[in-house]
């Protein structure tokens, strides 16, 4: 039955606008499914794709991890976001399938005044 091919389901997250730089402004980009007492099992998220669109924010990097401010833990090294361009990171090329057991958060290292970066992640939900 080849269970290894049925291990996880691919789900895309919402497009999130990162309008503030710095780890203190890390925003949730994917939420772990959880409903205490009703939802069966511990779910985890394996990052599969990351799409970034740089709204003329200047070339910078985006950090993806869990937590915010002092609790932020990176799941991946910083990903480049090139000024005014789309950057796509996908499986088998750029991304390690890092696994998160908490909501995935992200923040840009720097932003030009009044600019932002749009981010969307696609994950494999396991468990």
């Amino acid at each position: 039955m080849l269970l290894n091919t049925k291990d996880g389901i691919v789900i895309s997250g919402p497009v999130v606008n990162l309008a503030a730089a710095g780890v203190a402004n890390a925003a949730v980009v994917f939420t772990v499914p959880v409903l205490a007492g009703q939802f069966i099992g511990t779910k985890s998220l394996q990052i599969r794709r990351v799409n970034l669109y740089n709204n003329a924010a200047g070339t910078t990097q985006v950090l993806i991890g869990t937590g915010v401010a002092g609790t932020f833990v990176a799941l991946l090294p910083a990903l480049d976001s090139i000024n005014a361009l789309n950057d796509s990171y996908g499986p088998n090329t750029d991304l390690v399938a890092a696994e998160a057991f908490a909501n995935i958060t992200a923040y840009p290292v720097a932003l030009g005044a009044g600019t932002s970066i749009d981010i969307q992640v696609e994950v494999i939900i396991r468990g």
Partner: protein
Amino acid sequence: MPDLYIFKSQIGMLDPVALYNQNVAIHYVKSTYYRKVDFLEAIPPFQCLDFGALAATTPSARTNVTNLEMADNEFGLFRWYPIDDAQIRLYHPAGISKWQLRNLQIPVDMQIVVRDPNLVSTEIAIWEDNRPAMEAINGGAVALNAVRIIAMGYRFHTVDLEGRGEFADPTLVANIKSGKEPCTHVFCSGRGIGD
């Protein structure tokens, strides 16, 4: 019932070991109970246990898998696999090692879905609430956030063919024991070495 037996390998998931109105012999350690199935249903794959976080190069405590226990008069048939990078030792009931060779107790790890895609070798049956238990071993140099087990199978409700109850049938039990009537033998525990 030549096509209904434990440890069956086939294309697809797994077959039930008995159907409605068929006889089963439940073997639990050294006891045997002769019964008849009067209800069965499939149990879809579900996460039956999460050991939680497990530090690097550390075994977990032995943990009862209460989510695999069955109600009175019922037995469950399950195949299972872990989805996190640990080796799992099974005890069934909690004090008896399962898959025990003379010198080694065999664990199951994530590779099972590649080496045994039908999970035949993980098949276990559980009689009522007779406590399956597991230990997880994290042999890696990285702590695990979770060690999760997925199980799937069947639930069987049975009636007692022995004793003096409503469904007692001493003649049928005698014929099962002598081989004149068909019966699926279901082993619902491990067995100690030399026991």
